Structure formats: C-alpha cells, structure tokens
C-alpha cells in the first residue's frame, strides 16, 4: 500500500499530468467557488429583488434598485468618494515617489529594513491603526496636547471627523500600495540607462525628468490603481475618523445592510462599485501585460 501512495504522490507532483494539475487546484477552486463566486452571485440576484416591509425581501425581479443608485440623491456621495480617493492616490504618489526613489537609489544596505518597516502598519489590524489616529488627532489627543501645551495654539484644533482626518487615514493605510509598485518599477530600470544619460550630457535632474521618471510611469499607474480602487470601497476609515459630512460609498453600503436593512439596494450599490473596480483592474492588467511584452 505505501508503495501505491508513493506512486500516486510521484504522479501528483510530476508536473506533467493534466489530471494531476486539476486535483492540485481543486481545494482552492472549491474555496473560491463557495466563498467568493457564490456570494457574488447571491449578491447579484439580491440586487434584482425588492424590499418588503420590516426588511423582508420580495423575490420579484426589478431594476428599481439600480435606478435608485443613479438618482441625484447619491451623486454627492459618489462625487465625494471619487474626490477623496483621487486625493488619497495623489497624496500617496507625492509621498510615495520620493520614498520609493530613496529606497531604490539611496537606501543601500538598509533597504530591506526600510521595506519591512513599511510593511508593519500593513500587518497591523486596521482598527488598531485607526484608533491610534483617534488618540493622536482627538481634541485632547497627542497633537493638540503638544500644540496647546507648547503655546503654539490658544485652543485645540478640531481635526478629527473632518475630510482632513479621513484622507489622512486613507493615505496612511494605502501608502504601501503606492510605494511598493513604484519601488519595483524604479528597481527595474537598468543603471546603464542612467549612466548613458549622464554620459550624453544630462545632469541629475535632467536625467530624472527624461529617463527615470518616464521609465517609472508603469509603477506610477499601477500605484494609482492599487490605491484608488480599494479606497473606493473603504468604510472603516470614514466611519471612525470622519463624520456625517465625510460619508462615502462604503458607508452608504454598510448602512443599507446594517442600519436601513435594505439589502437589495445595498446589493445594487455593491454591484455597481464592483463593476467600477473591475474596469480599473482590467486596465491595470492590460498595462502590466503590455509592460511584460515590451
């Protein structure tokens, strides 16, 4: 018997049999099917249903929920979400590009240490980091204590629950998603291109403008998509660091499910958001494929 098992394992990992490859991919396929594909299908079905009294669901197909998504009532929320996420992506780019440039050209032997430091907030629970920001930014928080205590300000600043605190939180959370693709695209630029530019008479800044920056544009684009797209669905940051005036699509969806008990409308909102994200990711994929082909 052990002999047969051995033989089976050898066949399984030979990397040649198509059947073996199906068996190997089976567990993950089931996982994805049951916990991703099926829920999304349910969501899509739900988005076509109607809301009955007291949060009950009437299974009568309608497009009413989608019509509601595109009513003027929600335009300000959509516009705000796009604006906040755009601002987040741009700020991440402005902060992330110099950081990635530093990592790639100056960090030297400290590079891996810096990369790990960069990843630590990433591995920390989002709630923990959000509460840390509340502690720092609150009316009696660290920032105000220092500013008022040192006499720089007469009275504490109300920064919490403003667009500022929400965007700050978003930038904090999504910055690594910008830095890592930027860093990897800067790393991929052969040093010979930079030397060739110097050699032909371009100084450091000219070389940056004419060689380094254009060659890192795929990283800029990837970073933009990777910050902007997930930011669209964020609700935790706005929930804890924001207020009624910083209400985003994510919060709207959350409220449909948890407060308003209007699951069909929540599902329709989610479906539209998902579509928008997929379009973004599709262009990201296309760009990456083009880069690989070059």
């Amino acid at each position, binding site marked *: 018997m052990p002999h047969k098992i051995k033989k089976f394992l050898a066949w399984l990992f030979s990397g040649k049999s198509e059947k073996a490859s199906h068996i190997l991919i089976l567990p993950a396929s089931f996982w994805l099917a049951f916990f991703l594909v099926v829920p999304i299908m349910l969501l899509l079905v739900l988005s076509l249903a109607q809301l009955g009294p007291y949060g009950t669901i009437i299974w009568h197909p309608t497009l009413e929920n989608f019509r509601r998504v595109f009513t003027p009532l929600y335009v300000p929320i959509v516009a705000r979400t796009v604006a906040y996420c755009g601002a987040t992506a741009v700020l991440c780019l402005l902060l992330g590009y110099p950081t990635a440039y530093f990592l790639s050209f100056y960090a030297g032997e400290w590079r891996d240490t810096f990369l790990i430091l960069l990843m630590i907030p990433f591995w920390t629970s989002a709630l923990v980091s959000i509460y840390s920001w509340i502690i720092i930014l609150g009316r009696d928080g660290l920032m105000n204590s220092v500013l008022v205590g040192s006499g720089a300000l007469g009275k504490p600043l109300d920064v919490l629950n403003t667009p500022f605190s929400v965007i700050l939180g978003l930038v904090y959370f999504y910055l690594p998603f910008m830095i890592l693709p930027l860093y990897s695209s800067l790393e991929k630029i*052969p040093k*010979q*291109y930079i*030397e*060739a*530019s*110097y*050699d*032909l*008479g*371009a*100084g450091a800044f*000219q070389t940056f403008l*004419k*060689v380094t920056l*254009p*060659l890192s544009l795929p990283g800029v684009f990837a970073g933009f998509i990777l910050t902007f797209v997930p930011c669209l669905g964020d609700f935790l940051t706005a929930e804890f660091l924001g207020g009624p005036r910083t209400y985003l699509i994510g919060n709207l969806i959350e409220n449909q499910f948890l407060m308003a008990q209007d699951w069909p409308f929540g599902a329709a909102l989610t479906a539209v958001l998902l579509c928008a994200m997929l379009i973004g990711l599709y262009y990201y994929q296309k760009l990456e494929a083009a880069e690989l082909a*070059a």
Partner: protein
Amino acid sequence: MIFPVEPLLDLQGLEKSFGGTRVLKGISLSVGQGEFLTLLGPSGCGKTTTLRIIAGFETADQGRVFLSGKDITQVPPYRRDIHTVFQHYALFPHYNVFDNVAFGLRLRKMNEGEIRDRVLSSLDLVRLRELEGRRPGQLSGGQMQRVALARALAGRPPLLLLDEPLGALDLKLRKEMQLELKHIQRRLGISFIYVTHDQEEAMTMSDRVAVFNAGRIEQLGAPQDIYENPETAFVADFIGAANILSAEVLSSVGDFLKIKIEGSVETEVPKQNGWGGAQGAVQLALRPERVVVSADRGQAPESGWLHIKGALAETVYLGNSRQVILRATGREKNIVSSMSAEAFASLGAEVSGAALAKFRIKDLVLLKNPEKEA
C-alpha cells in the same frame, strides 16, 4: 610613443579599490589625437574600471585624468566631452531611434533643424537612416549596436569610449562591425578607447594595445610589436598562444650567450633583442606556428635549429590548420605546434611513437621576468 603635441587623454597613476580589493594598481597611459587604443585583458583585470574612470562613472582613489591638458579628475560625466558606447547598448526604451540619437544634442539647446541634420548624418554613418522611427525593442542586436554608436557620435566628441560593444553579437556580425568601426573611426578622426577581452579583435582594429593583467598594464604597444615581442609570459600567452620554455643562462661568450633550455638542450644565442643583460633563470616564449613536429629518427638538428624530444600526444583538427601536441620527455607542460594542413599531411602517419619538436633559435623570445607584487 612620443607625442609631438599634447596627448588628447592622459592618465597618471590611477589607483582604485573596491571593498578592500585593489582593482587598479597604478595605471598610466596616454592617448593621441585620432588614435585607436584597445584595453585588452581577461575579466577582472581592471580594463573596464579604467574606462569607467575615464567616462567619470567612477572616481579614482589616486591619480589624475587629463583631457586636452585639462584636469578632469573631479569633473562629473555629464560635463566631460567624452561619450560611451555601452556593452548592452543602453538605448532608452521609451524613445525611438531618432530621439535616442538626438538626446545629447537636445540638451545642448541646438535648434531642431540643426539637430535633425546631425541625427540623420549620424544615422547615415551607421547606415540606419530608414529606421529613425523605430523603438529599440523593434531592432536586432546589430542594429541596436549601430544606433548606440550613432548616439555616442552625434555630439562629435573628441574621444569615444567603447565597452565590449560587440560582445553580444554573433561571430560573423562581429567581424563585419569590427571593420566598420575601424572605418568610421578613421573617417571621423576621433580617438577611440576600446575595451575587449578578445585578443583577435584587439589585433584587427587597434593602433596600439594595452594588455591589462591584475590591475596593471603588462605591455603597451602596436599589435604587431606585442605579438612579435611579448615582454611577459602573460602577454605571450594571452596574445595568440605561446609555449613558455624555462631556460638558464650558463655563460656569456663574446657576442653570444650560452643557455640551457628545459634542463636538457644547450645552445648559443646572439646577444641582441634584449638578451644582453640576461642571467640566471629566464623564460622563453615560442609561438606554436613556429614549431614543426616530425618523426624522431635520431637526426641531428640543422644549423640554427633546435630539437626537443618527446612523444606525440594528440592532434586537434581546426579546419585550416592542425594543432599537434607533443609530450616532451622530462617536462611537465606539453609543447603545442600549429601546422598547416599540407605540412601535417606530409608528416603522415609515421609519427606514432617518438617525435621531435623543431624550431629556429631566432624564434625564441626572451621574456622579462614577471613583476613581483608590491
């Protein structure tokens, strides 16, 4: 070489270490106007580091670099009137051929019409005018090489550096490009410093060759001079092949020196070509093409010839010639002979046992003892 006027480039005592390893141990060198100088040597000998110091990508720990009499040791690469053709071409992938060639010209604030003329004439020089709109990714290796050359030449620098520019090309294309490079260099009258580890390439193209070994210049001279009169065993072996024979100077008799080769063959050599002061243990170089192998029938050497006895070990077919390897009696290293196909045929199958390596005394080259490490 003595320059009637100031040399274009002058290197004085360059030293460079990387992480405690001494890569350059005092490189001094001058390059004349319109000269084609090759830095030749095995990998890790310091030739590329020397080139990078001239380009300005590295700074020497010690020593100075002068261009047209001006000290440029501390001048950054973008202010040096020197351009480089890189080993892997380093064409900017986001620019087309025209914009690559125009890159340096645009930085000089020339007007577009002037730039266009310059770019097209540079592309004409490498016969690639019709490809001006292509991206580097759409070019073959040979075409990229030409564009890299056109780009480096577009600014008409007095000095061009070439870092193994043909290394990635196949043999046939490499031969073609060698000749083409040489023609372009002659036509423009620009000085070339060319780095290669290919001794044949160095021989074909250069006015002078600097043979590098372990951070020093072992010998500097015209290709023929280096080939005919190698000064060290390293040079003799690296440039072409060589049999290195050990010998001992026994005595000096009038115009002749009495020497004993490989502890067995005694002979007299005339005191000339640097033989004058030789004494004690010396090394001799002997080119394989100057050695003839024949059957040993106990014959005495003809006048002016020497024989080394041995047994035939191996023959290697090389198409136009035949390499014959003789295991010499009482000697560790074999003696290699390179014979023409006809000479080998006339030797016939008779050489199966005892054989002789025959050579003229005048073909022996006395080597300077290799410099000891400081």
